[in-house]
């Protein structure tokens, strides 16, 4: 165990390198091909181009005059800014709302003793067992009756707070020392102040992890927006890219890959910033029990 044979070390590194190459290759291929013309992509080379590297694909995603730009007969272009803003707005607002309500609920479950606490905890855990598809049809009906069809509100209102978030924060809030809370209470801190000023700062790593998990989930969510959104002005990135692929995918691979790259980038940047918190948040529920 203590002394590994140099050859076996070499084998481990070789195995890891092979696996990493297979993992990274499609991403690298995506990043390179987004800067090639569709003709060059069709030639199947990896690192080289015949016509040279180009940002033309991206330029067509952000036309200078979005109203006059659509000419499907030749080089199609779309107003991609719109979709990025839509995605940012919806993912951002859902993340902030979930963060606030989930951490507040988790705080209540972890740091108070009250009647009905057991029942609420059981309900929360039981919610994990309900698969999403069973709720799709009745939620659609509900959103329709609320007049929120084809409306951003229809996406936000159903996912403002979830059992998963409450559970994560309940686990995290347990690490806040009771003495800290008691002392602040004696000093005249309000109950909301205990949450906001005392508990929330202590669980900051979980805040980072939770934001990333939630943001990623909503950023990539497809089925529910596909059902709720109809007008192109409201499309989020997954819906928009899906539609673009349907319209131009066969003969404009460059445009589609550029759109995909831009859609993936924000989450990748966010993850790189919050990597440590994310991994610990992800595994905290599973490994520590």
């Amino acid at each position, binding site marked *: 165990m203590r002394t590994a044979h140099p050859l076996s070390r070499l084998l481990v590194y070789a195995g890891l390198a092979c696996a990493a190459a297979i993992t990274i290759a499609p991403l690298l291929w995506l990043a390179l091909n987004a800067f090639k013309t569709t003709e060059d992509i*069709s030639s*199947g080379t990896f690192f080289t181009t015949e016509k040279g590297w180009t940002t033309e694909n991206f330029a067509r995603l952000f036309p200078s005059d979005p109203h006059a730009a659509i000419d499907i007969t030749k080089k199609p272009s779309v107003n991609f800014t719109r979709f990025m803003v839509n995605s940012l707005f919806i993912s951002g607002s859902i993340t902030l709302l979930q963060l606030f309500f989930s951490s507040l609920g988790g705080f209540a479950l972890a740091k108070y003793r009250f009647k009905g606490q057991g029942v609420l905890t059981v309900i929360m855990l039981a919610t994990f067992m309900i698969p999403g598809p069973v709720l799709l049809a*009745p939620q*659609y009906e509900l959103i329709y009756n609320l007049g929120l069809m084809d409306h951003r509100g229809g996406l936000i209102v159903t996912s403002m*707070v979830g059992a998963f978030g409450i559970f994560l924060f309940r686990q995290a809030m347990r690490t806040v020392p009771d003495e800290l809370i008691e002392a602040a209470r004696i000093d005249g801190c309000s109950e909301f102040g205990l949450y906001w000023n005392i508990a929330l700062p202590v669980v900051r790593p979980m805040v980072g992890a939770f934001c990333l998990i939630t943001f990623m989930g909503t*950023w990539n969510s497809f*089925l529910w927006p596909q059902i709720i959104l109809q007008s192109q002005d409201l499309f989020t990135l997954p819906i928009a890219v899906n539609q673009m692929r349907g319209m131009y995918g066969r003969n404009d691979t460059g445009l589609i890959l550029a759109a995909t790259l831009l859609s*993936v980038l924000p989450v990748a940047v966010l993850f790189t910033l919050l990597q440590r918190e994310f*991994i610990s948040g992800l595994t905290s529920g599973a490994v520590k029990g």
Partner: protein
Amino acid sequence: MRILSRRSAPYVFLLPFAASFLAFTLYPLIQSLWLSLHITVGPRAKLFTGAGNYAFMLSDPEFYKALRNTAVFTLGALCIQLPIALGLALLLNHTWLKGRSAWRFAFFSPYLVGQVFTAVLFGVVFAPKYGLLNQGLAALIPGFPIDTKWLEDPARVMPALIMTALWMHAGFNMVYFLAALQSVERELYEAAAIDGANAWQRFCAVTLPGIRPVLAFVAMLTTVGSFQVYELPYNLLNNSPGPQGAGLTIVMYLYLRGFDSGDLGFAAAVGWVIAAVLLVMSMIQLRQGRERVPR
């Protein structure tokens, strides 16, 4: 006088969750049962049909095809993806390994892409002639036909789906396994090594029991997630179930039969079938997890 007393605060703090649970989970759940007994045309016109939706499903060959495809996909995830994820974690768990977090980041990165964008990307990766997969295979295997069709050939659609899911999720599951492996006490390995156990015996006697709870958790997560796969095949196969429905999954069946054709009642019924299957599978996995407890 405080606005919130210590007694009332937890109720107020949990009010958003309670309200959301009642309005968007419990009420729809009950409504879903009722809805599944109706034929609907859009959200307004309803006609009571009793068990008609369920009877239709049982007589629909497409339903069985969707069920079979989904089962194959789920089995592929459990039998191929999880062992590979565990293998990667074991490689990364060597104490002398340099750059562990860089390796981990590399393997985890596909998960960041998300199902829809992964599917769009792999739609190009699987393309005949210029696609990355055929180009790569042709470079490694002499004589591999460069124009192999992955997404147009019914026999290759499911392998393509399983490969894509493997690429996307192996690193994600690896993160769980690695965290579990690192919580197994080193002394146990050293004791086993002193007792003369070889690597395989150490794996079976120390590693597997040590990570069993996480293994069960990840298997459950993978089963539930794979059984509800929709975005991946739908986007990979150009908004269709693929050639001869080879990529039709059960949630895609729900979407196409329920939402595309506007029959919410039918969608609700399919939803309940999915819920029932998942419940049974979870119970089997829970029981198996308990039976395998050593000691």
